[in-house]
């Protein structure tokens, strides 16, 4: 009965990248909902772009889904309360809300009517949706397609190439209906002829599940396809996945829409559909809590703004942890304090036990960094240019193409911090301008 030909193979040449340990130990565990928290901290800047502007006052009563800060400009996203209670404090960069423990939803929330592409962008904006794969780019901007741009492919990014993280996988296993309805809605409203759902080959169960989408009755003209990608990091990076799915290369400084593609994370699609169906904006997030210091890892649904330490004490971490990473171990950012809140763009909290070894040797010029770089750069040459202060060379080494995926540092046998050096090189170039 299965139409096997609907599972496509990647179009582009094999990704350079690197094979990482998958460490997806939480994949088959049902997501746990975290009980209500006493207090949430909602930062105004949980996305790329201008921080949101607060619209609430101290002492004001808010409900789940109440707008607390509005988008400030085009590239920005609003923030909604994730609990019901009172506004305790409005800081310069965040709002603190004390929960009453009831989680009462805001009564004014209503389903959203979507008929035109403008409606869809409006819905993404009202929802406060940002790219949930980790980048945090406001979805409204992505869906506001310029006049005259032809989009022929919707790429649904379910690659989830970072180790440990399984939150997108759980989304597609548990909220399958939202995913499938979301895909068809976006495809129909934007009138995109093709949709490709991209999954890494290490998620066989998800491939089986998503295969049903590709063979759904609504797909009358056979336009939704499933693609099995090599389980290689960084398969889920935007430019990489476009190349894998369509064979098109996004030129430097251009957007996916310039090559006729829109890439959306699978959880973003499901979240957008839920907002349109119920009117409830993005107020909670499924995150994977895993890492070497987590003995009982799991996926938890937490209200956005929950302090990380609350999540950690709910899941339970070993006492000797030394590092908390917001996101996965490859591109995640270390937090300075466990008081920091969960943000919209978080899809994981990785807690590690041991610090990385500090001893580095001189570069032995094995060339592994260059042969793993998905952007085909030469990190070792940048490293040497920086150490000799040859800053004029940085431009010709194209350091601005670097997407900081971390492959070069990962493979380096001399344990040189190459990704950090690439960041340094980029900031040197910025300052020179």
């Amino acid at each position, binding site marked *: 009965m299965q139409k096997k030909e609907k599972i496509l193979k990647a179009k582009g040449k094999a990704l350079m990248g690197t094979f990482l340990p998958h460490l997806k130990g939480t994949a088959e565990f049902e997501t746990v909902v975290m009980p209500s928290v006493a207090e949430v901290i909602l930062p105004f800047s949980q996305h790329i772009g201008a921080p949101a502007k607060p619209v609430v006052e101290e002492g004001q009563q808010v409900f789940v889904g109440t707008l607390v800060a509005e988008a400030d400009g085009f590239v920005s996203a609003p923030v909604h309360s994730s609990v019901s209670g009172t506004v305790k404090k409005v800081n310069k960069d965040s709002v603190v809300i004390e929960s009453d423990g009831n989680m009462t939803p805001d009564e004014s929330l209503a389903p959203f009517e979507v008929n035109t592409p403008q409606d869809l962008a409006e819905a993404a904006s009202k929802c406060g949706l940002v790219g949930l794969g980790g980048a945090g780019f406001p979805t409204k901007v992505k869906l506001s397609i310029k006049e005259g741009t032809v989009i022929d492919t919707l790429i649904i990014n379910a690659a989830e190439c970072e180790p440990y993280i399984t939150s997108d996988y759980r989304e597609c296993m548990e909220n399958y209906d939202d995913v499938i309805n979301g895909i068809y809605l976006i495809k129909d409203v934007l009138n995109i002829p093709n949709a490709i759902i991209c999954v890494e080959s290490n998620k066989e169960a998800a491939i089986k599940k998503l295969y049903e989408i590709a063979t759904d009755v609504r797909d009358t003209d056979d336009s939704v396809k499933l693609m099995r990608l090599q389980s290689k990091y960084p398969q889920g990076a935007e430019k990489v996945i476009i190349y894998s799915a369509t064979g098109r290369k996004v030129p430097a400084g251009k957007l996916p829409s310039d090559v006729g593609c829109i890439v959306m994370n699978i959880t973003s699609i499901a979240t957008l559909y839920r907002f349109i169906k119920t009117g409830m904006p993005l107020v909670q997030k499924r995150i994977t809590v895993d890492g070497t210091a987590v003995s009982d890892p799991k996926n938890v649904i937490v209200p956005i703004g929950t302090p990380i330490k609350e999540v950690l004490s709910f899941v339970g971490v070993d006492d000797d942890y030394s590092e908390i990473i917001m996101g996965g*171990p490859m591109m*995640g950012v270390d937090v300075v304090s*466990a008081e920091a809140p969960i943000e919209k763009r978080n899809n994981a909290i990785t807690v590690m036990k041991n*610090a990385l070894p500090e001893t580095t040797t*001189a*570069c032995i010029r*094995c060339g592994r960094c260059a042969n793993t770089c998905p952007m085909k750069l030469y990190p070792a040459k940048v490293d040497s240019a920086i150490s000799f202060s040859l800053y004029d060379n940085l431009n010709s080494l*194209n350091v601005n*193409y670097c997407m900081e995926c971390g492959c070069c540092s990962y493979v380096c*046998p001399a344990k040189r911090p190459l990704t950090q050096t690439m960041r340094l090189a980029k900031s040197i170039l910025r300052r020179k301008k």
Partner: protein
Amino acid sequence: MSKILNVSSSPHLRHSDTTQGIMLDVVIALVPAAIFGCVVFGWRAALVLAVCIASCFIFEFLWNIILKKQQSAFDLSAIVTGLLLGMNLPSTIPLWMAVVGSFVAIVIVKQLFGGIGHNFANPAMTARIVLMVSFPVAMTSYIEPFTVDAVSSATPLAALYGDAASAVTVKDAFFGIQGGCIGETSAFLLIIGGLYLVLRRVINPIIPVCFIGTVALASLIAGQNVGLCVLSGGLMLGAIYMATDYTTSPTTNLGKAIFGICCGLITFIIRNFGALPEGVSYSILLMNILTPYINRLTTRKPFGYVKVKEGK
């Protein structure tokens, strides 16, 4: 609870390979052929190897102490250099010459240019060339397998390209029953070691395959005994273990292919038209010097490259 957290730049995962681990892999790959050399050429061969390894290690160790540098002797790269150098010497060589070779390799070729990763030529191979030029008689006094007398005999290679008839069969050459340097005789064990390195992803097979393939093809066209051309002399040792030296070979796959093919051609030309019987080390040295230019020629354009107008 205010715990001081560790904060570092991503990525927070690292591959388990280390510089030391890679060097250890090379040693592991070389050891079977080295032991075989000791079996064939006797205890004197073992002594030469030991002297080379020890002196390379001591030179590296002392250099770092005298110049107050970070101690790099324990990254095993000096051990690899010593082992390779020893395997490139005949078992009859006076021990002081082996020490001179180690000095050239570690101090002159490696450390004077900045240590590991900065040398422009392979240290062990350059040391072999220096010894060859300085002490040609001692460097070519090969003994027959399983004999103890230092009776110098023509190598199969010299016989192949000279007038003397070779008594060595392809089978003998493959398994290493032939005269020559300590470590270069057994093509079989060298290839096994090379496969180990390829499987461990320490070396890329492009250079050895192109190098050996080019020599084989050229001798086939010239109508020579392909088996003996490929299996005797220093070709296996040079192509698998010296031409693949990270520092002195090109980075990209295309660059590696060019490097390997050119090495093969130069080897063939020297063997046939040069005054020397063996050309492997000279061809690698020449290509080492050309490596920066090959690297520049084969620089890849980044993914999605857009040309930037000059003068901005």
